[in-house]
């Protein structure tokens, strides 16, 4: 590598990008300028460099002009670097002797109103890129084998769908769920809009399929502890929380729960119904294995005695760490409801008869704590009118600025359920706009209007409780009439916003994936790649990426499943050869690099008495370059981001060609 000749026949290709670049920057001027730069022997331009004829231009020019480096001045390298690397490789060059000058995102688009200065900047950018290209070195792409297994984190409907798709194609799937049962939030719902399918009826078959599938290994009551590795070769350490019940022995008979003396609010029912300290969260739980809540268990041993010879209960069980090797990972951690008690004006948590939409689902659900009877929590009576507060915590600058996308529709559905189950009870919907965007959603909205639900356009300003009747006095402005309105409601349902699950943040740090300002996980591209992350081989499905209804969640999950299988089916993945390299002659073995490396990719080996030398494990090095920046002897170099390459860019910026 040391003696290789530096590129000195650089070709510069300037893209018009339609009018995206050419509309601001005079291409001819830029091309002529490029020709004056050192080492540049050829400069050309084309309407769309990324098109086939554009790439063809690069290929032919490499041969005709005997180019040994290519610079394309166009969009962001994050967008088209791979395209043009392929084009230069097709022309016979090493794909790494290629540099992109980003004159679109970094110039023409952001300085549209100052074309002259944008052009100056574009010239600087091209000059810096040429300087860097003249110092690039050929690198070899390495291929590594891929572990033929996929992990899906979160077993709500997104995780279940993804796991089934993957497993059906014959790939081992690990489905990780932190709760005792799979099913997620969808298993809490009663009916689903707009078709009014029973949620459990359409979900349970899938849950059972998961349980039975030979390729799916479901690990419930399990959390991700640590993630190591990279595309194709992740090692995920999961914590199997102490369940207190041996899954292999428990047959789900429930004798233990019958004798358990401890009663607690069931989280699955959002505290509306009871459970024992040894419990299954709901009757259709998969797997149907009991779980001991050790925080409330008093270790009275009654359940152990009752279980008897089956011997399924172990009160001394400890958490267990298990290492799992997978090639790709899908994150499907779902959502929580926004803590609506923060909106104090609506009194959730203070007034008995103010509940959330999800609590409503449990109350109206036949398998819920009331057997499907909607009652007021304060006195168990049937409500005669129910107020719904839409956009509760959504589209609200004090809470969440975004639209949660499902609240309009499920509130309409709630209204329908009330009118169907309890004729005479009137639902009042306080809304800002009804967003009925999906297939057959708008029709559903009309149907609910026709059925007699009352709509009041206006946000509820505050709610008071009548201390005697426990009724809720709802104050709002009817913005269509322009008058304040007051409603004496028996019950209020807040359509609380969707927020990412609290634990997602911890997981996100373990996986080193990004989030958007709204705290949902960030997709690689909002339109063209909504299920990938910027980290290779980690994919997203469902509400962890943004609020979604069930059809969208299932669609995204299937997409993520397909994408996650690609590296598995390819069998090997290319590693970017951007890794640190040690110059043995310069290394004094001080070890500064090793202590900085976040991946423990650098080891010091003895090469004689008292002499040590650093060496880098290529597969473990991710190419951040932290070591190279710190090496006092400059013995470690970051390939493709070498000191002289970066310094050439800096120098080129401040020493314009041709004087100045």
């Amino acid at each position, binding site marked *: 590598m040391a003696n290789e000749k530096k590129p000195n026949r650089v070709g510069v290709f300037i893209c018009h990008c339609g009018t995206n670049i050419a509309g601001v920057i005079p291409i001819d001027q830029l091309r002529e300028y490029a020709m004056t730069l050192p080492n540049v022997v050829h400069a050309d331009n084309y309407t769309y460099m990324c098109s086939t004829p554009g790439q063809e231009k690069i290929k032919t020019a490499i041969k005709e002009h005997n180019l040994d480096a290519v610079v394309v001045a166009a969009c962001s390298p994050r967008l088209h670097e791979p395209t043009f690397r392929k084009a230069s490789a097709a022309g016979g060059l090493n794909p790494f002797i290629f540099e992109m000058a980003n004159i679109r995102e970094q110039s023409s*688009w952001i300085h549209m109103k100052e074309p002259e*200065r944008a052009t100056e900047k574009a010239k600087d950018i091209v000059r810096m890129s040429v300087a860097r290209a003249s110092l690039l070195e050929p690198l070899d792409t390495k291929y590594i084998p891929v572990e033929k297994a996929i992990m899906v984190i979160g077993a709500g409907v997104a995780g279940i769908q993804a796991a089934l798709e993957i497993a059906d194609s014959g790939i081992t799937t690990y489905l990780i769920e932190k709760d005792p049962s799979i099913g997620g939030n969808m298993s809490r719902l009663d009916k689903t809009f707009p078709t009014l399918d029973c949620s459990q009826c359409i979900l349970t078959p899938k849950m059972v399929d998961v349980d039975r599938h030979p390729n799916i290994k479901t690990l419930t009551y399990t959390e991700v502890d640590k993630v190591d590795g990279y595309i194709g070769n992740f090692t995920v350490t999961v914590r199997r929380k102490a369940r207190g019940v041996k899954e292999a022995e428990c047959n789900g008979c429930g004798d233990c729960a019958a004798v358990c003396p401890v009663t607690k609010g069931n989280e699955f029912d959002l505290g509306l119904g009871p459970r024992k300290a040894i419990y299954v969260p709901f009757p259709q739980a998969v797997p149907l294995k009991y779980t001991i809540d050790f925080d409330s268990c008093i270790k009275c041993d009654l359940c152990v005695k009752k279980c008897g010879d089956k011997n399924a209960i172990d009160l001394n069980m400890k958490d267990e760490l298990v290492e799992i090797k997978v090639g790709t990972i899908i994150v499907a951690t779902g959502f929580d409801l926004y803590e609506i008690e923060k909106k104090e004006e609506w009194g959730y948590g203070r007034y008995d008869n103010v509940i959330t939409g999800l609590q409503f689902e449990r109350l109206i659900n036949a398998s819920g704590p009331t057997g499907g009877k909607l009652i007021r929590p304060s006195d168990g009576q049937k409500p005669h009118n129910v107020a719904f507060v839409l956009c509760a915590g959504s589209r609200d600058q004090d809470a969440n600025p975004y639209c949660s996308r499902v609240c309009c529709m499920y509130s309409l559905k709630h209204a329908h359920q009330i009118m169907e189950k309890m004729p005479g009870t009137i639902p009042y919907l306080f809304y800002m706009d009804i967003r009925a965007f999906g297939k057959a959603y708008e029709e559903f909205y009309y149907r609910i209007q026709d059925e007699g639900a009352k709509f009041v356009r206006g946000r509820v300003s505050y709610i008071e409780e009548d201390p005697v009747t426990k009724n809720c006095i709802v104050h709002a402005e009817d913005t269509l009439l322009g008058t304040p309105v007051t409603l004496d409601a028996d019950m209020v349902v807040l359509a609380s916003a969707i927020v990412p699950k609290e634990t997602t943040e911890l997981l996100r740090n373990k996986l080193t994936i990004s989030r958007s*300002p709204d705290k949902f996980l960030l997709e690689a591209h909002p339109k063209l790649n909504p299920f990938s992350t910027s980290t290779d081989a980690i994919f997203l499905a469902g509400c962890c990426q943004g609020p979604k209804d069930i059809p969208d969640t299932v669609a995204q999950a299937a997409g993520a499943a397909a994408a996650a299988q690609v590296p598995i089916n390819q069998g090997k993945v290319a590693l970017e050869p951007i890794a640190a390299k040690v110059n043995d002659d310069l290394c004094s073995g001080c070890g500064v690099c090793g202590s900085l490396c976040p991946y423990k990719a650098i080891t010091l080996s003895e090469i004689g008495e008292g002499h040590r030398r650093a060496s880098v494990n290529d597969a473990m090095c991710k190419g*951040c370059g932290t070591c190279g920046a710190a090496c006092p002897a400059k013995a470690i170099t970051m390939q493709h*981001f070498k*000191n002289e390459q*970066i310094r050439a860019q800096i120098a080129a910026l*401040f020493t*314009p060609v041709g004087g100045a």
Partner: protein
Amino acid sequence: MADEFEPKILGILCNWCTYAGSDLAGTSRIQYPPNVRVIRVMCTGRIDPAFVMEAFSLGADAVLISGCHIGDCHYIAGNYKARRRIALTRKVIEQFGIDPRRLKMTFVSASEGALWAEVVKDMVNTIKKLGPTPVQKKVDLHAAGGHAAAGADEDLAEIAKASAGKKLEAAPVQKK
């Protein structure tokens, strides 16, 4: 148009957060001053303080480093290291008579295009108030072909020496 001072600022951005964020600013057509020229590195941890010194020695009016938010580094902890290095480098440039406000590190995520535009606007305003760099650009470090650093691997001290003398006398009233 009056000959207003237009600072020339070097930006060194990490690939995963701020470079992506600045791309987003572009895609969203957010308009901001064209004073910053960007170098992309994979991680702010890659940034050798020598790069910063070199830029100042060559006449940069300011250097802007930006990476992922603390805790969000794509490489776990590169931005922590960069933050420390930049904090120290600020002290070093101050010793050379360069106002430490000319070197700044910010944290802008891939989804914060608008924030990146604000960061640049702020920086440009600050530097406009501070005026041009006190470093006089006569340092004909590497005449050959304009590609200065091509063969250059002088170490930090060397570069600093080349311009240090000038800086100190040229820095008029750089107050603490």
